[in-house]
């Protein structure tokens, strides 16, 4: 019988890294403060000690250098797992991500690949300073050649992270830091994967499909529960944003005929738009109401005194669901 541990999401990150470091000698974990310090969120705690300086190491404070050296290591056959301390600091490395990590396989006709998993905590709600709260997943889903995964539970975190590290293509792995320590879950001790590109139905329902991911999954489920009796909402946690599980989205919509998309990211150009457009293309004749988007605003992420206004939370999501069902 397999044993489990009761882990938070960030502990599941650490456990996932540990399992992959044990499984494959080519896996290396590096970034700012990930070594002896164990990461500013403790996602790599103890790994430096356990696996040594060659496998888990600190780098200079240089995001482009971190991603760029990962590209070079990958070309030599290694499996780099760099960390960017906050997703708001990925931009100095953005050129390396889009111009090189994403394009290397195409450019070399498959000779060189970048099986990198680029981890970064994302999202708001933790009373953080400027640049520490954004959700910019759409930047990465827009880029061909990248995959993007966003877990919402400790169990999925370990499994998706293992799948990302074993995947032959670069994966941007965005971790919902708001729920790093929000709750615990039983997580198997042994390694396992949760397949990339596979959504999870978190709550079955027949009246409306609510699509979300990452830290928004919890308030969305809360909203669905609050409405139980009044509305029977289905909640689909997409888990991987590229490639997106379009079958799961369209299947759920065909059942309910109504959709709400919940994301922290700004509305304009966000993934809600892509989901709405796909529903139009694939299931127009099933549609009973406009696709509702409950999202962040098209503003810079406010400093934390006002961030609660910005972040979708259960009450706002409930309103969105109700409006869609009563259209």
């Amino acid at each position, binding site marked *: 019988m397999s044993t489990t541990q009761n882990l938070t999401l960030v502990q599941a990150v650490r456990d996932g890294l540990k399992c992959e470091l044990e499984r494959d000698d080519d896996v290396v974990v590096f970034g700012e403060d990930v070594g002896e310090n164990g990461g500013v969120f403790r996602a790599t705690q103890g790994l430096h000690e356990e696996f040594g300086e060659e496998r888990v190491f600190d*780098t*200079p404070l240089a995001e*482009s250098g971190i991603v760029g*050296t990962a590209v070079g*290591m990958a*070309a*030599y056959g290694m499996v780099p797992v760099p960390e960017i301390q906050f997703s708001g600091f990925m931009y100095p490395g953005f050129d390396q991500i889009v111009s090189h990590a994403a394009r290397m396989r195409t*450019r*070399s006709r498959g000779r060189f690949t970048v099986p990198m998993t680029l981890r970064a905590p994302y999202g708001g709600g933790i009373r953080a300073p400027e640049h520490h709260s954004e959700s910019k997943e759409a930047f990465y889903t827009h880029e061909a050649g990248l995959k993007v995964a966003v877990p919402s539970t400790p169990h999925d975190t370990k499994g998706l992270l293992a799948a990302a590290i074993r995947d032959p293509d670069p994966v941007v792995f965005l971790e919902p830091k708001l729920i790093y320590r929000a709750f615990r879950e039983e997580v198997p001790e042994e390694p396992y994967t949760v397949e990339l590109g596979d959504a999870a139905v978190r709550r079955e329902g027949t009246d409306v499909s609510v699509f979300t991911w990452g830290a928004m999954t919890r308030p969305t489920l809360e909203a669905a529960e609050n409405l139980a009796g009044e509305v029977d909402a289905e909640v689909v946690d997409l888990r991987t944003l590229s490639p997106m599980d379009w079958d799961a989205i369209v299947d759920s919509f065909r059942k309910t005929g109504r959709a709400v998309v919940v994301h922290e990211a700004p509305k304009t150009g966000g993934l809600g738009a892509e989901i709405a457009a796909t529903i139009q293309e694939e299931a127009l004749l099933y549609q009973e109401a406009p696709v509702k988007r409950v999202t962040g605003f098209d503003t810079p992420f406010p400093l934390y005194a006002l961030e609660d206004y910005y972040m979708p939370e259960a009450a706002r999501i409930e309103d969105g669901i109700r409006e869609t069902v009563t259209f």
Partner: protein
Amino acid sequence: MSVLERDPDERVQVLDEEGRVVDGATVPDLSDEQLVDMYRNMKLARHFDQRAVSLQRQGRMGTYPPLSGQEGAQVGSAMALAERDWIVPSYREHAAMYVRGLDFDQTLRYWMGDERGNSLDGLNIMPVAVPIASQIPHAAGLGMAIDYRDDDAVAVCYFGDGATSEGDFHEGLNFGGVFDTPTVFFCNNNGWAISVPREEQTATETLAQKATAYGFEGIQVDGMDPLAVYQVTREAVKKAREPPVEELRPTLIEAVQYRFGAHTTADDPSVYRDEEEVERWKQKDPIPRLEAFLRDRGVLDDERVAEITDSVEAEVADTIEAAESIERPSAESIFEHVYAEMPRRLESQMQYLQRLREQHDGELLEE
């Protein structure tokens, strides 16, 4: 004393402009055959370059970045490497890539818009990197991986003078120093970043001296003297493999040279520089310099030079024919190497393109 130990501002030279060995210089230990190879590689690169520019002018190829004037730096450095070593090129290193085993028809294909020209199976060459300086961290990363695997290889990264202004130059060299990687950072300082002269890129006296900031050696070499470039690169590579005690393995080489032609075929250098300046640099042309040296040594004579010229012209003609006779890549190849496994949505877009072609054949693609 290793030439690397000289002052970064003191430019290493073996041959003067007339191809005579300068006082105090040591001619690198190369056989006559290797020296003739070096000469032939440069002649070939020059002739290829001239033909490539003319292909572009005739509408047979897209935008192309010429290298004439820079053969000495590219050939001299690439010949100093062992089979197991890596090069990490920018977009102008056709001659260095040729020396490392990439035939020029591949280079032509790439600049003819066919991505297969960047497919380098079996060669220790990274694909062409277009964004300036962005390949420098890759070379540091390659070095980190070589180190991790305990291999004996060295990664040589090429970039231009303009690249030294980019953040990736700093980050790449800094990682090289911090992780003490077996990396040679080879700057082809050709004096001009498109229209901006070297003096406007940085306030430092030389580019080589920037190495000091990363804790390793920098050296300036006459980049139009293939023997000096060979010597300096060979020592840098040797040091990267077996560093002396308390010395870091990376080296920054600044090879001072000049591009005789335009930045690319889309550029008109007459707008920003004088013909007189170009003529002055042409006096340093690496090809006649090495030729004079080899004639003086009795290795080359008129007959041998004519033979080499003929064989170079024949090889380039064959290369062009090979590049032009290859069929256009398939439409499907747009989708084929985006991911290891094609996602469903990409597959349906590929099928859509196939349907479009069936319905509008001939209207979609300019022949």
